[in-house]
């Protein structure tokens, strides 16, 4: 079918702004239709059946609302539609998740601080160029305080250790220009200790190589200028082996393809300069086939239910493959390139 191979960008924007926002308030999130603008871009949102079905889904995700905000808002920015939301409102809400005593952010108002949400908060503030609202040193001290003796990072005061948290900590501190607050060498040493015989990385030393963990480790090494620890050809091959016959990418050998690996695998390949080793055309087709072109949103694989997480990662994957109409995304910081440039070239 002719339009099978297109990105339904407008529908995705509508999905993000409306399905996640089930409100009875009269204020329309979009400005009124003006004759010079095409009607499809500014339709008044409708309360679709998808929203009612999703309301319980949203309900059980209330504690990770900050992650959802990052996924949704970054996608809007990638599609050049960040202006569809009110920046001041977003910043206010983000700060209502802040814990001034600890310096960390919770997943939603009234939730305990954790690095997962602290990174999302910092990333969203970067999108809006509002890092000025932060007590930067306080937030940086919160993250730095979670580094352990062996260089690893805990997620919060309860001590869970995972290479995800290494990436999160390094990414947060780098965006805040506060990497000097931690022992960077030890952080790198811990990540290297998680390297496996196949060139990949797991969550802990000895943990099975997994594309999500690999992204975290490669990203962490990229941010700290330590990519020399990676055997790029070996890892590059492992990563391009993730491409399945259907064109999608999986996260480990003998598993099914999932749209989110369009990000974890692809960004890793870009960071080690091996992205030309996968078949981009087939992957693009796979991602586009996972869209709900009527209601918007992207799912993990074709014909499944959509969610904001897979919508973001699908579009992020398309960005890395330079899909027309999608802004370029920085593979290490997972933020639009212009945002990252602003942070590192302005100061």
């Amino acid at each position, binding site marked *: 079918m002719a339009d099978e191979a297109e990105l339904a960008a407008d529908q995705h924007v509508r999905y993000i702004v409306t399905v*996640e926002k089930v409100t009875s308030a009269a204020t329309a999130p979009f400005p009124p239709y003006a004759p010079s603008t095409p009607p499809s871009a500014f339709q008044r949102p409708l309360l679709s059946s998808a929203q009612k079905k999703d309301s319980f889904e949203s309900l059980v995700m209330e504690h990770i609302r900050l992650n959802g905000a990052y996924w949704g808002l970054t996608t809007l920015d990638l599609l050049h539609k960040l202006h569809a939301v009110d920046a001041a409102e977003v910043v206010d809400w983000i700060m209502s998740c802040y814990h001034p005593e600890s310096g960390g952010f919770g997943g939603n108002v009234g939730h*305990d601080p954790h690095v997962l949400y602290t990174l999302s908060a910092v990333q969203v503030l970067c999108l809006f160029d509002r890092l000025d609202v932060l007590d930067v040193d306080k937030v940086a001290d919160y993250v730095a305080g979670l580094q352990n003796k062996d260089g690893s990072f805990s997620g919060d005061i309860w001590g869970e250790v995972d290479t995800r948290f290494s990436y999160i900590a390094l990414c947060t501190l780098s965006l805040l220009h506060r990497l000097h607050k931690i022992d960077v060498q030890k952080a790198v040493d811990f990540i290297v200790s998680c390297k496996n015989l196949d060139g990949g990385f797991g969550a802990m030393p000895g943990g099975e190589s997994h594309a999500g963990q690999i992204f975290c480790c490669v990203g962490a090494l990229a941010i700290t200028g330590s990519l020399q620890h990676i055997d790029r050809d070996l890892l590059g091959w492992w990563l391009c082996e993730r491409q399945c016959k259907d064109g999608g990418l999986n996260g480990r050998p003998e598993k099914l393809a999932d749209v989110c690996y369009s990000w974890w695998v692809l960004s890793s390949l870009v960071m080690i300069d091996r992205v030309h080793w996968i078949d981009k055309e087939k992957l693009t087709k796979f991602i586009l086939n996972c869209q709900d072109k009527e209601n918007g949103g992207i799912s993990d694989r074709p014909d499944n239910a959509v969610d904001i997480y897979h919508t973001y990662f699908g579009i992020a994957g398309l960005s890395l493959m330079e899909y027309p109409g999608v802004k370029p995304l920085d593979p290490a910081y997972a933020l639009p390139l212009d945002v990252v440039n602003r942070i590192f070239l302005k100061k």
Partner: protein
Amino acid sequence: MEHAKSGPSSWPELADVVPVPQDDGPSPVVPIAYRDDFREVMDYFRALYFTGERSPRALRLTTEAIELNPGNYTVWHFRRLILEALDFDLLEEMKFVGKIAECNPKNYQIWHHKRWLAEKLGPDIANNEHEFTMKILAIDAKNYHAWSHRQWVLQALGGWETELEYCNQLLKEDVFNNSAWNQRYFVITRSPLLGGLTVVRDSEVDYTIEAILANPQNESPWRYLKGLYKGENNLLVDDERISGVCFKVLKNDWTCVFALSFLLDLLCTGLQPSDELKSTLEPIRSSHPETADADPVTVVCCILQKCDPLRVNYWSWFKATLSQVS
């Protein structure tokens, strides 16, 4: 999963509590519609959470909240504070979280809670934890959380004695299970009982070759085989069993991508020309006359470009970069 049929608003022990609704801020970015029973439990939870109450009724509320939504990490955090304050029976708690985990086997908070408990309970709980992860892996043999937990328990609390046998069993059930192959490597390199990689290498090579010959299209044992000689590639080339398995597989099916790429690795590491190599490449050369006079590396790369078109760029790179070296 059974929870109270009537919500907290009808519990006599909570009669004096004023429930606290979720504060999404003055202009919520993403306000969401709540289901009533969930809303009620969370409103009461918040009331006790904000007053910092550490009591049996608070514990009971966290049980309700967890059963409705085990992903809420703040509830788990509060529960741990209560457990500590009440000096609660941690074995009982381990039983509780086990039930929740069975229904939610991919939930980070649950596995972390189990680890927190296991750290406190010590080596005596090791068996229980291994039995538990075994139960989870019996349903999903690749559950990453279960494997992480199992590895942590082995290293922190012990139980190595039967682990290699467990890997054998899992691989018998599904020889394609990459997690089981990873665990096998974990055991032979880290178990204090086996003597280390070099001691078991010989038997492991035989085991792996048998697995490859039974299913040559299996990615994991090829990688495992290479990993057995990590850092000692010269030994890899010298061990005739290794090149032997490549030749054997390719004689049956010269399009087997894993065998071809392994052969490439060997050639680039110094595998010497032999009659076996020549006869293995013969059917490839005759079906692809353009490779008739090419060196072995080029022949293998050419056929890989055809047999593994998804990764044609990788094989082209290999050919361009390394065919000059061999």
